[in-house]
């Protein structure tokens, strides 16, 4: 048994009444590449903050090279031999690359060597960071971390949104750390990378470490099972419960909205799907798989670089959100602060998009407006005691306002982008009911969700987007969490097997 390089155990972190970490632990051997895995909300990001000294735990010990470490800031953690690289490069955009190196006391020659190995040659160190592409900055950030030769290197979603050639270089550089006295903690949504690169994986669930897995062929399934845990058992129990009656739609009917080979930006590569009248189509994707760009395109905020959007079978070209609104396609974003006028009243927030559909700059019909706004507020039971300023409403009520403002007979297609993120359970249930009600009344709904159990509960059908394309499609009643999660991690082969077994045992009790 070799001595452990890093040994964190019994880590507890509470935020008020919320316990983010109950009993998190992580043991890293020298020279190992260790994956830290967990579903959304498992406590992964809090654990990383504790490990890097950004957050002080309420209990637990962190032992680095046999000595208890008490870092109270990322700078102290860095001096004690632990360096982290995040998805957002920690590089000051207004300084040159060289100045950024000097600021962090990075040896320039070692940095050069690392950067060469990572596949970026002849970088001008006098270039301002602002003028370099994001992918380059992230590689620079990694090279800078490698140049310091830290005992423990923590990489958070390092390969997300990197072009393929740089990804290969990055993965090789990480692999080279194996067998040295140094170790890497690797956090990634991409299960295949984890399987190909890591020696062991620690899995977090509900704030606790639930297992440490030796990564070998087939270990992905074990990891997914650990990540889901009781949620999966619950899901399987739920599968036998009668689901809400769904409107059946003729498969040959013209879809309300069709996406054809849509591509935009770096992440959206080639997405096609159909969305029918009366249907709730679930969309599942890990972060940065092109879903943001897809919603931007469908709601008229961004023009696609290629591909087409069709409404009722006819091609449309949205140049502005008002074009989409006139075509009856509306977006309900997750981030309420980007959907609402926070300092303005509920009335104005509800009235604004209704006016956007009108071409004139004319006067508002006061009586008609008051009636419509009142009806929308009643329908969603928005608590309007604080209606003079939306920012004084609770998060759930704010989210209701973002939906209420679009409740109108002229809206026929709703794009919900994670509408239940960060809101309480009761409001969540109300929003689920509302989504079903909208579909029942003939609207077509595209629902992106990060909470996988919502797919079975609310949707008729689900598509999974990975790497900018639709990798999977299934009816909602077989879309349980393991299936969706495997698919969303790009494990298509595993997916096919699950789909086959689900087909063989339609009651979802496949074993």
């Amino acid at each position: 048994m070799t001595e452990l390089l890093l040994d964190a155990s019994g880590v507890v972190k509470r935020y008020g009444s919320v316990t983010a970490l109950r009993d998190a632990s992580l043991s890293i051997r020298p020279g190992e590449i260790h994956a830290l895995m967990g579903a959304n909300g498992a406590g992964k990001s809090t654990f990383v903050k504790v490990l890097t000294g950004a957050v002080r735990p309420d209990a637990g010990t962190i032992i680095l090279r046999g000595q208890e470490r008490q870092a109270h800031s990322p700078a102290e953690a860095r001096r004690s031999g632990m360096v982290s690289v995040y998805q957002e490069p920690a590089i000051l955009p207004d300084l040159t690359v060289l100045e950024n190196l000097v600021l962090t006391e990075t040896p320039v020659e070692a940095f050069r060597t690392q950067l060469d190995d990572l596949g970026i040659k002849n970088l001008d160190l006098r270039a301002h960071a602002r003028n370099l592409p994001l992918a380059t900055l992230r590689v620079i950030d990694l090279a800078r971390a490698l140049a310091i030769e830290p005992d423990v290197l923590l990489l958070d979603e390092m390969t997300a949104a990197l072009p393929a050639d740089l990804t290969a270089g990055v993965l090789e550089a990480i692999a080279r750390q194996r067998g040295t006295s140094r170790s890497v903690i690797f956090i990634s949504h991409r299960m295949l990378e984890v399987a190909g690169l890591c020696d062991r994986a620690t899995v977090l669930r509900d704030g606790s470490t639930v297992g440490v897995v030796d990564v070998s062929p087939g270990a992905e399934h074990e990891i997914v099972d650990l990540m889901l845990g009781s949620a999966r058992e619950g899901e399987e129990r739920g599968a036998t419960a009668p689901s809400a009656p769904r409107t059946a739609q003729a498969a040959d009917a013209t879809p309300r909205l069709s996406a054809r080979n849509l591509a935009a930006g770096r992440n959206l590569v080639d997405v096609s799907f159909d969305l029918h009248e009366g249907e709730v189509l679930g969309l599942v994707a890990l972060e940065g798989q092109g879903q943001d760009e897809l919603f931007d395109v469908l709601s008229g905020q961004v023009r696609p670089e290629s591909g087409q959007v069709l409404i009722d079978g006819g091609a449309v070209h949205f140049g502005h959100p008002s074009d989409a609104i006139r075509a009856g396609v509306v977006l309900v974003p997750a981030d309420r602060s980007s959907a609402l006028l926070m300092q303005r009243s509920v009335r104005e927030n509800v009235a604004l998009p209704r006016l956007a559909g009108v071409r004139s700059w004319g006067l508002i019909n006061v009586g008609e407006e008051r009636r419509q706004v009142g009806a929308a507020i009643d329908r969603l039971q928005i608590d309007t005691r604080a209606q003079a300023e939306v920012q004084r409403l609770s998060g759930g009520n704010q989210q209701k306002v973002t939906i209420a403002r679009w409740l109108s007979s002229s809206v026929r297609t709703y794009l919900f982008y994670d509408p239940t993120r960060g809101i309480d359970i009761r409001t969540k249930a109300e929003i689920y009911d509302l989504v079903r009600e909208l579909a029942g009344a003939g609207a077509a709904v595209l629902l992106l969700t990060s909470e996988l159990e919502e797919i079975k509960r609310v949707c008729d059908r689900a598509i999974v987007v990975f790497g900018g394309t639709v990798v999977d499609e299934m009816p909602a009643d077989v879309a349980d969490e393991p299936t969706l999660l495997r698919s969303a991690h790009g494990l298509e082969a595993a997916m096919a097997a699950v789909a086959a077994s689900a087909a063989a045992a339609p009651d979802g009790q496949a074993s």
Partner: protein
Amino acid sequence: MTRLAAARGGLGRWARGDSWTVGLIVIFAALFVFTKILRPTYGLDALAIASLPVAFAAAGQAIVVISGGIDLSIGSVMALTNVIAASLLLSYPELSVPIVIFVMLVGLLIGAINGVLVVVSRVPDIVVTLAMLFVWAGVALLVLGTPGGASTSWLRQISSGTLGIELIPRALVVLLAIVGVVWIPLRRSRLGLSIYAIGSNRLAAFRSGVNVEGTKIAAYALTGFFASLGGLALTASTGIGTPIPGPYLLLSVAAIVLGGVSLAGGRGGLLGPIVGIYILGIIRADLTFIGMEPAFSTVIQGVIMVVVVMVGAYLTLRRRLA
């Protein structure tokens, strides 16, 4: 019960929603009573006439700040429209009505040019309008190299003296009538809501289907329109055109800060800044009446402004936490 009934009425709702302006009016009333005690001959009409140009500037500045911008060229535009009006009125005294309308349209156009430059260049508003401050000031000097020109009698008449009783100066009536005729319908229109929307949250407004660029240009055009009214008021009160801008830019910004318009945009109205101008004006008069040295009096004005805004921020914070 009575409170509820009052709250149902339009005035009550306005008072509750715009408690800041109500507070300012109360402060002004107290200052006015104080001034009357200090100097019984003091009349509101002198204050109203002196404040008219800068009150129009404050109203215009308020619109563009609500939309999330700022217009540093407002003083220059006032000077430019002032000299255009004065020169034309000297040459064609018989065409005074068309000239006044023409000057208003020039203001609208100048504002629209400012707005288009901000939208097209994507340079921050403060930079573009700073540049335009010099441009419009230069154009004003081209139009009229030295103070001169003329006014017309009706311009002077509609803005001086009082209507019936002493408490209703004509200049105040003209001011409120014009602002009311322009702003109240606008406030109830799609454009008005859009102006608040882009100032409050550009992205949310865009996602709600608002034409962000068009609205911004319209807001600047309205500001230019009010600046031209300020220029005409200068022509009326001085009787000539003066190509060098007065201190109206900074006064207009001071008034909107005092008047409850958020410099971050999206919040406030036009009445608050107008009352703010009156308060700044009457304080200046008071400080003269009590024999304060002029240099010291500007210090006092600045301190009063900071204190009022601080107290306001404190009250807002307390209400929000309650």
